[in-house]
């Protein structure tokens, strides 16, 4: 064989060997758990609620477990899956991680395979009747193939608007209860140089919330039925809801350029800097009624305004059906423990404490960020001080009660990733005028059929 051929053959052989070696590197190895139930170092990944709230939870946890060091690792909501997947595949640097029900970021159906079964740990903490003590959704939506893959921390609900009550009082605007009042309110605010209603319609998940609220206004429960295949997405009520959705853009309720705006940070910042009077946000927004959280949100919006009175209101009856007050919710986030963690026992202690203990769930309740999973934990209203208690306490208490009694109406829990994308595409297309409502509904029906 010629010398050149020998070199070429050797090169190919070496490259194949290199490829094989690298393939070998990709296979995960079992790691040894070096922690105990009371000692260890836990790296906790998540996207919500963010600093400083997570650090407060950790400080409370450390009062009971001083030898478990928990480090909060936060990514943005959009970057979470992209950051977590390689970290979990690598098997290092992730001990506890947040997951969600449904098709949003951190979906349990995708990440559940990397988590351990927490059933025994919960039984140990709450007893055999643990299911009676926790929010039903915190068990059912986190159970994959019979294994409890994560523990729900709390539930969030949507379906309502938040309004700046101070601005409504200042300009003497009636709180809208129907389409005509909503348009009138927006017009008054516009005349005064303020956005009436603001939505970051460029961030699709929040469009689904608004559309769900409209669909429930048209015909309660039909949105959920469509997600479950019990009615077709091409049903007349869904087409009607898409027409009303389009109307929000045509009638001047949605601010100009809404499709180019993100809900976070842009729409949120407009509301927090008092440049907009209404926004479509859910129960997670309740924490902004706390003075410290609101100050922080206002500063993040690059505003120097003082905290203001924000209250939740029902989604206006734009369909004219009288079907109002619908709310829909899912577990906001749950804590899973990585199957390849070298601090598995300590991470389990933390996940169980956060999701099931009275002390862990009480701080969750008092932060007003989510509705806690443990049924006995409710906000301690003597301890929780709002910006304007006189005007906020009653509406917010009623709002949270209404949310908890919303029944079987999941937010994203019943929507798979393909339907989620299809909903975002159709809603953006209908709003932008590139898809008609009936074609959009047909497109949703086709995606549902394909994804089944």
């Amino acid at each position, binding site marked *: 064989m010629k*010398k*050149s051929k020998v*070199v070429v053959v050797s*090169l190919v052989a*070496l*490259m194949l060997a*290199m*490829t094989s070696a*690298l*393939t070998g590197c990709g296979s995960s190895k079992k790691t040894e758990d070096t922690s105990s139930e009371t000692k260890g170092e836990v790296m906790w990944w998540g996207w919500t609620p963010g600093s400083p709230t997570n650090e407060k939870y950790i400080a409370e946890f450390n009062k009971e477990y001083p030898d478990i060091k928990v480090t909060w690792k936060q990514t943005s909501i959009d970057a979470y*899956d*992209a950051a977590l*997947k390689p970290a*979990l*595949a690598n098997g290092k640097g992730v001990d506890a991680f947040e997951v969600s029900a449904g098709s949003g*970021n951190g*979906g349990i159906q*995708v*990440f559940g*395979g*990397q988590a351990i079964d927490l059933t025994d740990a919960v039984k140990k903490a709450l007893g055999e009747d643990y299911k009676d003590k926790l929010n039903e959704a915190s068990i059912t939506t986190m159970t994959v193939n019979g294994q409890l893959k994560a523990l729900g921390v709390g539930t969030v609900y949507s379906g309502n608007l938040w309004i700046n009550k101070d601005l409504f009082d200042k300009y003497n605007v009636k709180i809208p209860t129907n389409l005509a009042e909503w348009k009138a309110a927006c017009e008054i605010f516009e005349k005064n140089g303020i956005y009436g209603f603001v939505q970051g*319609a*460029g*961030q*699709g998940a929040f469009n689904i919330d608004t559309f769900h609220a409209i669909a429930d206004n048209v015909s309660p429960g039909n949105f959920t039925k469509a997600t479950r295949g019990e009615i077709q997405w091409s049903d007349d009520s869904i087409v009607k809801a898409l027409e009303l959705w389009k109307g929000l853009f045509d009638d001047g309720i949605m*601010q*100009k*350029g*809404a*499709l*180019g*705006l993100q809900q976070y940070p*842009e729409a949120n910042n*407009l509301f927090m800097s008092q*440049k907009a009077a209404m926004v479509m946000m859910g129960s997670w927004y309740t924490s902004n009624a706390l003075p410290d959280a609101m100050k922080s949100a206002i500063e993040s919006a690059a505003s120097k305004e003082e905290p203001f009175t924000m209250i939740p209101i029902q989604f206006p009856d734009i369909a004219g059906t009288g079907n109002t007050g619908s709310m829909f919710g899912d577990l906001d986030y749950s804590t899973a423990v990585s199957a390849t963690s070298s601090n598995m026992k300590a991470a389990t202690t933390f996940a169980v404490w956060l999701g099931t203990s009275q002390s862990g769930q009480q701080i969750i309740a008092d932060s007003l960020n989510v509705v806690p999973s443990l049924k006995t934990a409710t906000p301690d209203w003597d301890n929780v001080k709002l910006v304007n208690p006189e005007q906020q306490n009653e509406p917010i208490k009623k709002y949270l009660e209404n949310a908890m009694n919303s029944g079987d109406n999941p937010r994203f829990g019943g929507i798979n*990733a*393909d339907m989620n*994308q299809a909903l975002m*595409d159709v809603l*953006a*297309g209908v*709003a*932008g005028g*590139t*898809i008609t409502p009936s074609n959009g509904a047909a497109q949703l029906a086709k995606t549902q059929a394909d994804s089944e």
Partner: protein
Amino acid sequence: MKNNYTSRSTAMNGLPWILPAFIFVAGLIYYSIFYTFKLSTLDWNGLDPIQTTVGMNNYDKAISDWIFWKAIKNTVVFFLVTFFIQNFLGFIFAAILHSDVKLATLHKCLIFIPTILAPATMAPVFRLLFSPQGMLQDLFDTLHLGITVDWLASPDSALLILMIVTVWQFTGMSFILYYAAMSQIDKEMLEASHLDGAGKFRALLSIVLPNCKSTTVSLAMLGIIGALKTFDVPYLITTGGPNHATEFLGTYIFKQGIRQSHLGYAAAISVMLLLLAICGAILINRANKGGEK
């Protein structure tokens, strides 16, 4: 013949010296390509232990996926527009700065600075600039022009905004390469053209431009590959919206692979992107060689 043998022999003797680095680099690159191709034959979410082999189904899916074709169309339009505008501007700036211009160094810096700025830094600025709450809107309102800056919200104008941002950012690169190419042109050739009666514009078209041909070809090749790989500017400014109006292959691969967990489908589009990039590079190379003959 003897010379050929000698040069081949010299090359073979040099091979062992580069072998370790060559194996490492080639191993990594080819491993990644082979692995991506393998992934493209799977239905897999990237984490699940169960991987289902689906053969070429992911490629079939791409062929009938309107968003994939929309991304291709956007890529072609994006390449053609940005390539011609940024190279035209880069060429003109380079020619101007080769003449006697005051503060030439300052001008060079000003033209080149956008190239070194990270898109992640500039994206929020452009989002604000082209937002209805932004600086441009304030300017229009002050001038009472009655224009609403909602261009990022419109499928018709959002792609144009991305092209403006790209031209702003990469004209400096074209400029610097043309500037270097023009420095290599023999001054006697230009003087001879003047003696023959050619004006400055004529000399620019008939002497300077042909002598910069290899630079134009390189920029075209970089432009095609860059357009196919475009991710950061559309993702950070429009996230591919509204309704996929600014979708590119890179952003679509990310959405499919990460957000929707269709890793196999994302890998299939990646393989197609690779093939398109290779085809584009070959076409431009051939066109260049054809022109030389």
